C-alpha cells in the first residue's frame, strides 16, 4: 500500500504577522514547523505503516528551506520525501498550489493521499479538496479517525462537524484531510534523525511536472490578495462576578452607555 502525505512547512506561531506593504507573511525570525494538521496526517499514515505495512511518501511544495520539514518527516519514519520547488511556483494561491501538487501526484503510485485540513498560516482548507477534484478522487475532509478495512480496498473514517459526526466508508484510492486532534504525532527517533540527512530528497521543478507556466505560481492564480492587515490588539476587558440577573442588567446598561441599544 502506498500512502502520500502532503504537508506544508509553516511559521511556528498562530500570531502570524503580515507585512503591510506587500500583504505577505513575514517569515523572518520565526521558527518553522510542520503544519499541525499535516503532522497528524503523517502520524495516521505512519500508524497504518506500523499496523498494516505501507510505504509512506511525504510531498511538500515550498522554498528550498522546506527541506528541514521533510527531513523531520523522514526522521519520524516516512520512507521517501519529495519537494516541489521552483521559482515559477512562487506566489501561488490555493488553485495554483493544488494544480502543482496534483501534477506531482500523477507521477506517483498511491492508494491513499492524506492532507492536513488546513495550514495555520493561510487557514483556507482548500488545497486538499482541490487536489482531490483535480485528480477525480473521492474525498473526505475533517477526518478524526481512520481505519483500514480488511483486504485494503477501503477505509472507514470519522468525519467531524461542530455538532456531530459521520462515519464514512470510502473506497481506495481516495484523499482525506486530517484534523490535528486525530492523534498525537510521534517524535522523530534518534536514529531516524541521524539518518535523515543521509537520504535523498527528490526536488521536482516546473520541467519535471510538465506544467504550463501560465497555470501555476502567481500567473496561474485567479485570486489576488488585495489587502492584508494585522488585527489591532484587543483591550484586556473587565471581569465581573455577578449572578445572572445582575449580569444581565450590567450588560444592558453597558450597551446603552455605548448607544448600541
Amino acid at each position, binding site marked *: 500500500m502506498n500512502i502520500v502525505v502532503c504537508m506544508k512547512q509553516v511559521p511556528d506561531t498562530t500570531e502570524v504577522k503580515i507585512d503591510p506593504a506587500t500583504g505577505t507573511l513575514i517569515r523572518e525570525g520565526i521558527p518553522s514547523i510542520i503544519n499541525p494538521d499535516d503532522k497528524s496526517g503523517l502520524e495516521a499514515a505512519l500508524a497504518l505503516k506500523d499496523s498494516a505495512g505501507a510505504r509512506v511518501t511525504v510531498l511538500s511544495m515550498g522554498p528550498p528551506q522546506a527541506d*528541514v520539514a521533510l*527531513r*523531520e518527516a523522514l*526522521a519520524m519514519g516516512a520512507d521517501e520525501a519529495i519537494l516541489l520547488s521552483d521559482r515559477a511556483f512562487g506566489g501561488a494561491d490555493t488553485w495554483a498550489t493544488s494544480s502543482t501538487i496534483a501534477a506531482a501526484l500523477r507521477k506517483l503510485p498511491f492508494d491513499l493521499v492524506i492532507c492536513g485540513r488546513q495550514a495555520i498560516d493561510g487557514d483556507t482548507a482548500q488545497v486538499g479538496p482541490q487536489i482531490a477534484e483535480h485528480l477525480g478522487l473521492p474525498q473526505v475532509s475533517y477526518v478524526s479517525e481512520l481505519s483500514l478495512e480488511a483486504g485494503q480496498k477501503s477505509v472507514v473514517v470519522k468525519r467531524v462537524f461542530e455538532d456531530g459526526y459521520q462515519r464514512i466508508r470510502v473506497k481506495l484510492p481516495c484523499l482525506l484531510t486530517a484534523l490535528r486532534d486525530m492523534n498525537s504525532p*510521534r*517524535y*522523530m*527517533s*534518534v*536514529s531516524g*534523525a*541521524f*539518518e*535523515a*540527512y543521509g537520504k535523498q530528497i527528490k526536488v521536482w521543478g516546473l520541467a519535471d511536472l510538465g506544467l504550463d507556466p501560465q497555470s501555476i505560481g502567481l500567473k496561474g492564480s485567479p485570486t489576488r490578495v488585495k489587502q492584508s492587515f494585522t488585527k489591532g490588539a484587543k483591550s484586556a476587558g473587565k471581569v465581573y462576578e455577578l449572578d445572572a440577573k445582575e449580569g444581565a442588567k450590567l450588560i444592558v446598561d453597558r450597551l446603552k452607555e455605548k448607544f448600541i441599544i
Partner: protein
Amino acid sequence: MDFQIDKEHRLLSQLFRDFAQNEVKPLAKEVDEEERFPAETLSKMARYGFMGIPFPKEYGGSGGDNLAYVMAVEELSKVCGTTGVILSAHSSLCAAPIYENGTEEQKRKYLVPLASGQKLGAFGLTEPNAGTDAAGQQTVAEDKGGYYLLNGSKLFITNAGPAEVYVVMAMTDKSKGTKGISAFILEKGMKGFSIGKKEEKMGIRGSSTCELIFENVEVPAENLLGKLGGGFGLAMRTLDGGRIGIAAQALGIAQGAIDETVAYVKERRQFGKPLSAFQNTQFQLADMQTRVDAARMLVYRAAASKDAKLPYNVEAAMAKLFASETAMEVTTKAVQLHGGYGYTREYPVERMMRDAKITEIYEGTSEVQRMVVSAAMLK
C-alpha cells in the same frame, strides 16, 4: 575551526527539545516534590532511542555519537535535572564501560537491553570509606573457580533500585592496591545482592540513590568486565566519560534557569516597569548567558573529542568543573532575580538551584577536576 552545529545535530536538538518540553517539563515539579522516579518518561525515552544514543545499532543503540548524547542530557536537564542524571548514569556509567570493555557475549547479553532501553543501568564504585579516594575499596570479590564471591557494600549509587544491570568494582587482590581492583557486571535479583537505604536528597530528588549490599553474591566468572585487576583504570576511564554527561546536565540546568528568568523579568513589574528594563537585570543576564555559552563550548568540545577518539579526560574535567560551577552561580542569580517568588516552590528556579549543587560533587568533585586539569599541566 567550525563552531557551528551541523544539520544532523540541529535536527536532533529539536527532537530533544520537543520531547523535554512536552514530556518531561510537565512532570518535573511533581517528580521533585514527591521524590518520584519518572519510570513512565523512561519508557518513552526508550521508544525514541534516547537510552543508547552513542552506541551502534547492532548493540541496540541509535548509532549516534557523544555530541548528540550530551545534547539530549542538556535538553532534558533544562527542564528536569532528575531525568538528565538518570540518562547520564545509565548511558555513561553502565552501558559505556560494557561497550568499551565488554566481550562480544557481554555486549549481546547486557549492552543490547541497556542501549535499547529495555533495562536501566547503574555503576557502583563509591563506598562508605571510599569516595574521592576510590582506591580504598572494601568490597571483596574472591575467586572461587568458575565464579567470584562478592561481599561488601556501595553507597550513593544513582539509579540503584530501578536499575537491572550494575557495573560494580571490587577488590580481587588486596595486596596489589589499585591494581587489585576488578570490575564485574551484576544483575538485579542475583542471590545475596540487595538494595539498601534510599537517600533523601537536597536536589535531583526523583532520581533513585541507594546503597548496594552484597552478601555472598556468586558472580559468574564470565561477568568479569575487562581484565582481572583492570577495574581501577576501567572506573577512571568510565568517570572521564561520565563527567561529560554530568557537565551536560549542569549546562542544561543553568540554561533552564536562564530561560525561566528571561520569561520572568519580562513579566514582573516593579516601579512601573518590567524588571527587564533595569540595567542590573540586563547585565546580570548577559553575564549568566556568556558563562553558559562558554560552558557549552567546553562540554561540546569534550564530547567531540571523545567522538574523534582523541584524549578527552582533561577536556571532560574542565567541562565538568566549569559547567557545574556555572550552574551553581547561574541558578543562584536566577533565584535572586526572581526575588521572593524565586524562593518559593511556585517557580522552578529554587529546584534548579538545589539540583545544580550536586553537579559540583558527584562523578568527581570540583576539587578532583582541578587535580586532573593541573596534573596534566604540571606533568
